[in-house]
């Protein structure tokens, strides 16, 4: 990865810290903004009251029961998806990779659409369980087709994209053939955090927490993924184990986020690239930057999604693409060939 080492040389020592704190600030502003603005007006005074003590009843309800869990879910899901994207790109050594290559999105969608068609009174908690099971099934399918831990990155990418296409085709087939019961599927497929509750936060936080610990423990070994297989195995026999660990991490991170919020696609692909363009390729800076920026982007996109077609909400997946793509295009244009 010569491009990475180039990017590292260019970054001045203070730069990563600056951008990491900037994106933390953006995340904070986004959370405050999404508590303040929405369909019902909340005054700054009321907001403060709802957060620190007993405010007046109605504002309390809005902020504590609706907006706060929603903002937290968006923040966690964004961070998880972005990290999953980074790990996929490292494991496949392909800049176009995102967790859908591990069959996570398509597997989750497939199981949810089966549930919609086959189970008469299909409820939201059931959808979450099914989606996670589907994500796991998709990932295991890709894993076994790619030949366990010993796959080459190209092999993994091709097996992954094929499984993705297969499962998506089956999902679309179910939708086309069962139009009545699957109309609501469209909204799930676009991705949304608007229904998030404290229960979702409780569900998501152990996933995020455990994966973060796992990820930081793994951080030194992840560097192995960036070098050629021959060199890596020359340094020890751990390549297959590291890839397996990366795989499990992607499943934990992306599987749980997709199960709760639907397949929010573009974020996973683009946030790692934006982060790399800003802080360089060193994993120590790249991982926190990616997590913070992912969270910030999803929180801001969620906030924006409330106003695009006010008073109706637009699915956040759409807004994420609409916000993230121009940002990435700007960076790609400005930095020319160094964004790789």
């Amino acid at each position, binding site marked *: 990865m010569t491009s990475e080492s180039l990017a590292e040389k260019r970054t001045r020592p203070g730069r990563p810290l600056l951008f990491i704190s900037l994106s933390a600030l953006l995340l904070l502003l986004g959370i405050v903004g999404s508590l303040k603005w929405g369909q019902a007006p909340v005054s700054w005074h009321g907001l403060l009251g709802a957060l620190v003590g007993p405010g007046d009843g109605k504002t309390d309800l809005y902020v504590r029961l609706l907006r706060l869990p929603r903002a937290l879910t968006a923040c966690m899901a964004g961070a998880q998806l972005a990290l999953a994207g980074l790990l996929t790109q490292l494991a*496949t050594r392909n800049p176009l990779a995102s967790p859908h290559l591990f069959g996570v999105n398509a597997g989750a969608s497939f199981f949810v659409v089966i549930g919609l068609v086959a189970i008469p009174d299909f409820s939201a908690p059931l959808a979450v369980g099914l989606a996670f099971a589907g994500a796991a099934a998709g990932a295991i399918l890709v894993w076994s*087709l790619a030949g366990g831990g010993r796959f080459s*990155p190209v092999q993994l990418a091709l*097996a992954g994209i*094929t499984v993705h296409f*297969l499962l998506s*085709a089956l999902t679309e*087939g179910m939708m086309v*053939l069962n139009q009545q019961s699957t109309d609501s599927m469209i909204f799930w497929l676009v991705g949304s955090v608007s229904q998030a509750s404290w229960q979702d936060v409780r569900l998501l936080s152990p996933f995020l927490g455990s994966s973060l610990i796992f990820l930081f423990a793994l951080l030194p070994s992840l560097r192995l993924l960036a070098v050629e297989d021959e060199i890596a195995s020359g340094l020890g026999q751990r390549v297959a184990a590291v890839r397996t660990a990366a795989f499990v991490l992607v499943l934990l991170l992306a599987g749980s986020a997709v199960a709760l919020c639907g397949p929010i696609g573009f974020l996973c692909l683009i946030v790692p690239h934006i982060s790399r363009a800003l802080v360089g390729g060193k994993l120590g800076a790249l991982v926190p930057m990616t997590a913070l920026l992912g969270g910030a982007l999803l929180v801001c996109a969620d906030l924006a999604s409330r106003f695009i077609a006010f008073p109706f909400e637009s699915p956040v997946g759409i807004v994420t693409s609409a916000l993230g*793509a121009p940002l990435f295009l700007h960076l790609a244009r400005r930095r020319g060939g160094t964004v790789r």
Partner: protein
Amino acid sequence: MRRTTALAAAFLLMLLLTAVSLRFGAVAVPWRHIGETLLGRPNPSSFVVDKVRLPRIATAVLAGFGLAVSGVILQSLLRNPLASPDVVGVSKGAGFAAAAVLFLYPRAPAFALPAAAFAGAFAAFALLLTLSRRLRLGPAALALVGVAVGAVFQAGTQYLIVRHPTDINLALLWLTGSLWGRSWSHVLLLLPWIAALLPLAWSGFAKLNLLQLTDEVAVSLGLRIVRERLWLILLAVALAGIAVAAVGAIGFVGLVAPHMARRIVGSRHQWLIPLAALLGADLMLLGDVLGRVLIVPREVPVGIMSAVIGAPYFVYLLRKAKDAGARGRTGN
């Protein structure tokens, strides 16, 4: 020798699938009637054969050619095994324009849809050109810019779909790709383009053989890479754009037919391009005929069936090449 065999086999498979497509469907047509229709003699089945199945088959074959060859060019140029007409944003742009026509002008005449889709494909390409400094970016960055452009268009499509939930089915059918109701007018739309562009693409095989190596090698061997790349991407965009305009946004064929071909004849484009084209047509025909006979009288769209059929076969090819996998082309 092996390459000739592969080409001949793919071609024979195409003929066989054509015959099977003519014979089977919601209504089975006797072989005798097919023969008589082809010879121009009147018979009870001539309407089904001549007005329904033949144009459909021709559309499938031509679109399969276009998508597969476009995929070959893009995978070699961008040096990324995940590249396909989707990656340069072309199908997404076409999909957005088509969805806009379907939702916002439901009474537009029939020719408006393919025209809009083609315009959408080129709008996406124009955007890609401006945003990538006329393709002066490296291959990986170029692919990413294409994906970003595509994401913007896809967000637009999803927005339209979510805002018009009543017409979802029509749009969904188009977005997955379908051959339903394709007539001779679609064939006439496709034929001149494909007939002109395919030879042009094939004649670029020597350049593609060099461009799939590194930029440095291509330059040192005397290639003006920026200009050649622009020209070849333009070809790929036109091929994919016209195919998508006729049959809808079929993603799988453009991605996987080139890989199948590459696994069979290797990476030299003089063989790769024709074999990929034939395999693309085979995939389309097979997906179409199975989609028609699976649950009569309903149809499974070809975009779905071709992926359901093609994916297992491709996985088989991948598994078979597992030992040789390390020698495969690496991304980035």
